[in-house]
């Protein structure tokens, strides 16, 4: 998921950075003082999640948790993921500083997309089954979309799309299942102990 330095062409790096700046600006606009702790803690969860590896095939993949962030935070996932990725880049040398913009966009945009696709389940008082399905979908779809965006970034630099996408998608299939289940478990847990969080009170308010 983390694209290294020197892989992508400058045009893609700059456009990725521009999109990330825009997304982060939208996200920051939506943050109120009372929401800062939840954004911070989800950012911390994202930062740590990348250390959890699931060995599959030649290279192992790791948890992303962007579906969970998108499900709860909406556009605020952008600043949360940006901070998490910047620290992963600086401390663990995952990805890189020049590719930070592209990487943030690749992981945060699917989170926002999932929010718009399935966020309705968070808002109203839906049945538990509906919430479970929506949360599972959020967790797995976000990873799938991120994988496709990574493949697309590589394609725009010169790789052929189909083989690149195949590798990314196949190696992330187990992660999709795990992320879906984890996001579902988190959503059900939060619904039990802190339903306001999923009510949209702290979530994205403006569609």
């Amino acid at each position, binding site marked *: 998921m983390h694209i290294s330095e020197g892989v992508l062409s400058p045009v893609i790096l700059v456009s990725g950075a521009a999109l990330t700046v825009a997304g982060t600006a939208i996200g920051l606009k939506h943050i109120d003082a009372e929401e800062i702790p939840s954004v911070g803690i989800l950012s911390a969860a994202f930062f740590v999640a990348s250390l959890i*590896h699931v060995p599959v095939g*030649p*290279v*192992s993949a790791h948890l992303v948790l962007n579906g969970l962030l998108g499900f709860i935070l909406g556009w605020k996932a952008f600043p949360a993921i940006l901070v998490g990725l910047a620290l992963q880049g600086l401390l663990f040398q*995952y990805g890189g500083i020049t590719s930070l913009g592209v990487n943030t966009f690749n992981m945060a945009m699917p989170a926002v997309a999932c929010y718009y696709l399935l966020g309705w389940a968070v808002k109203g008082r839906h049945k538990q089954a509906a919430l479970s399905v929506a949360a599972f979908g959020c967790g797995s779809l976000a990873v799938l979309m991120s994988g496709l965006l990574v493949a697309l970034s590589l394609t725009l630099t010169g790789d052929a799309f189909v083989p690149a996408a195949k590798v990314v998608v196949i190696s992330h299939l187990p992660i999709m299942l795990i992320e879906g289940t984890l996001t579902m478990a988190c959503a059900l*847990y939060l619904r039990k102990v*802190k339903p306001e969080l999923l009510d949209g009170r702290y979530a994205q308010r403006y569609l």
Partner: protein
Amino acid sequence: MDGMRNVIYNHGGVIQASLVKVCGLSILLWLVLSGTSSAHRVTIFAWVEGDTVHTQSKTGGGAPLKNATVKVLDNQGKRLLTGRTDAKGAFSFQIPQKTDLTVVLDASMGHRAEWAIPAQELGKMPANPSTSVEDPTRTETLKGREEFDKKVVIGMDRREMEVLINQILDRKLTPVIRQLSELTHSGPKTTEVVGGLGYIFGLVGIALYILNRKKNNPPSG
């Protein structure tokens, strides 16, 4: 004003309590699974032995990177040769030319790493020491290593001495370098993880401070 502030802080506290568990679960999982290999970053390490360059490719967690592409570039960035790593993540090649070389590891999904080999590292170890010593009076004594070893040679010139020392150093240091390449690049350390979490909570604190400053210090007057 005070009541409102309390409401805000109470909300923050409860959200924190439930989200801390999510975070805690992640940390727990990480501690359990941290032994496995990682795909976030890849590394390549190259060393010269005689006329061959050996490379060792790994994932961030230290596991060998199998079947990845290794490209060798010259100082102009032109590709000289391409190869694939074996099951142990190793790939060796003959020195194609004695300029600065860059070994580039290209793994799938946009992972990439480089290792530079300066020209002097390639030049100082002649492929065949006996032919590289041009002094005609000495050529015979230097024909083969075994033959050379048997003789007590006094009065070698500077160049012969250099060749000999390089050869010995090469032989002695190779296992050390190999071991070094095994030792470098382990996964992220606990201090880095804790440090990162500290940064995030520090940022949260700063953001809260800035946003609450107005409420906490109402303009006097």
